[in-house]
């Protein structure tokens, strides 16, 4: 796998699974991708039910999602570089798969939680999306 491909794959994995702090309309910890998903949904809802509350949700959640996606990108880039050194200039598919297994495995535990996505206690990845 090329470095670019590896970097993108890791970034997507990170955005999908790593719990990041949520401040506005939170608090809690959810994946960055979940924030972007909610923001996109609320953006669509703006067409049907325009209002200041929906608009606030779109930008407040969307900005947080974008912020964390931006933070996770250089981390993915660094991880891909490290893996590429091990793999003679290419990112070993097995390594990416291993990272995926670890992250998804961890995400099956109840490591996420925010009132925006869960009514009570912590939830796992399925509870998020």
């Amino acid at each position: 796998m090329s470095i670019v491909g590896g970097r993108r794959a890791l970034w997507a994995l990170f955005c999908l699974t790593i719990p990041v702090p949520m401040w506005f309309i939170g608090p809690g910890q959810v994946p960055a991708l979940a924030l972007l998903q909610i923001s996109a949904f609320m953006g669509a809802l703006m067409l049907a039910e325009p209002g200041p509350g929906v608009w606030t949700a779109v930008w407040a959640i969307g900005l947080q999602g974008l912020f964390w996606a931006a933070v996770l990108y250089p981390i993915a880039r660094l991880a891909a570089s490290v893996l590429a050194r091990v793999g003679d200039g290419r990112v070993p598919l097995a390594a990416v798969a291993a990272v995926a297994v670890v992250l998804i495995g961890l995400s099956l535990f109840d490591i996420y939680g925010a009132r925006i996505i869960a009514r009570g206690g912590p939830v796992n990845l399925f509870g998020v999306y």
Partner: protein
Amino acid sequence: MRAKTTARACFALSLIAATAAAQAAPFERTEQRQACADYDPLRRPFFGDLHVHTALSFDAATQDTRNRPADAYRFARGERVGLQPYDDNGKPLRSAQIDRPLDFAAVTDHSELLGEVRICLTPGMEGYDSLACIAYRKWPRLGFILFGGDVLAADAPQRLGFCGDGAALCLDAALGPWDEIREAAEAAYDRSSACRFTSFVGYEWTGAPDTRNLHRNVIFRNAAVPSLPVSYIDAPYPSQLWEGLEAACRSSVTGCDFLAIPHNPNISGGLMFLDHERDRPAFGRDYADRRRRDEPIVEIMQHKGESECKTGVGTSDELCGFEKLPYDRFGGQFDPRQVQPPTRTNFVRNGLGDGLLLEGKLGVNPFQFGLIGSTDTHLGIPGAVAEDRHQGHGGAGPIRGDGRPIGLPDNIEFNPGGLAVVWAEENSRDALFAAMRRRETYATSGPRISVRFFGGWQLADDLCSGELARAGYAGGVPMGGELPALPSSAAPRFATLAMRDSAGAPLQRIQIVKGWQAGDSIEEAVYDVAGTPGLGSVDTATCKISGEGHDTLCVVWTDPDFDPSARAYYYARVLEAPTCRWSTHICNEQGVRCDDPSTIPDNGAGCCDDRYPKVIQERAWTSPVWYKP
């Protein structure tokens, strides 16, 4: 055959009894029911809760509250009910039971969005698959913002788009929950001669323009009620609510009558006691008349804070720091930019004073109201006010396996709420409603303190050693009343009898709060009239109380500074000895030590927030007695 005959005989006897009582009762009987066996012409205090939300409320549903109106009444009558969170099988992981049943209650779900919530939570209903409903189900907190913020905090509230033309879908859907509320109230009402429990049909009108709370609970006198509530969407100003109810209730439904109870002036952003309706010009006598008639009582204490007064905001009363919120409007809870210091029109005592001034201008006092407390529970548990077992009144945070919360189960600034107390001859809808209308009510911050308060010109010094109630009614007026015309150059006298809650702390003292007109302004004074300041103490580490206190306090007090030419109000405030606040109980149970951060659990930061006291003084506030020159 014999059973049938016996039943008929009993029914006939009960009707005869009811007729006999109807002749004697000082209130109008508007419903068919058996006469109460323990009718007392000198009246008794009945404890209740007139502010209760269940799963039918849009916000309670987003907190996963599943108790419905019938469950709330079961709880009020003493049964155990489940609380969120629920496991995958729908089994509640917490439960609650009141220590002593209430005498009365009203489920007051938010009238706005009753239909919308039903549509969003009922598969197959038209609108269920709308984006708004998907968001409401999938992200409840966003649903709260969408439904609550964009509808109930709007200046000109609109129905959500999926309600269709003329909102027909949502209005039609609202009939179901409204019927459920009515039927649950009817099923819970004890129409037998035992008169154990009274339920009222009610709802909450939920207007909060710009998140400034103007909410009112509407309580109907009996089972004759409108086909649907008049909501904030239908009537965005309080005066429109009264007009709407006049049309939909008194003018349209035989036997229908109502009263509206404002609550949480403390988070009204100063709107609650203005001389005008937010963006409208100053109101006149018609408005004042209607407000005085249709809003005879105000809820002074509940889960989201106490609204009597605030030290430094129109008063120097040092006991006005009780259960205060750090913001003056709803928005301050969610958005730091909206945190504003409260103004004087956020508080009941200032409203009472301004009412005297307005009476001078208009000839009618629009703020001549009595007082009650309630919980505003959003879990469907009316009367759950105990500080030592508070489970929150909205939603649930994380809990441990044994059902106890991790950290605090509620925002640190909130509290378990208060109770409404009504002096009535019997526990029936007509008797309680008539008492509320004449303002013979009082509020407590939770304990079942019993308080009598009479005003008069010639109340005897030895009233406390005799039959205070009989003499008080004969020679004066009870709380909520107006002193009769001044007979001579006398000063008014006030008789107050307070008895402690047998399950609470001893009493510390009685105070009388007086406000009077001094030209174009209001002066106030607080008199310690019985008991001793500083009596009693509590160990915050164990919450054990110690020291002296009183089981009963009684006093006949004469106003030493009476000015016959000045309008005035007087009310009594009864204070218990200090006890632990709810948060102190929970923080102690969880072993929190603020000098060791490792002992502070998630959701437990409030345990060490110095802005909130570890000790409180529970209390009762009577409705005022007014004097007019």
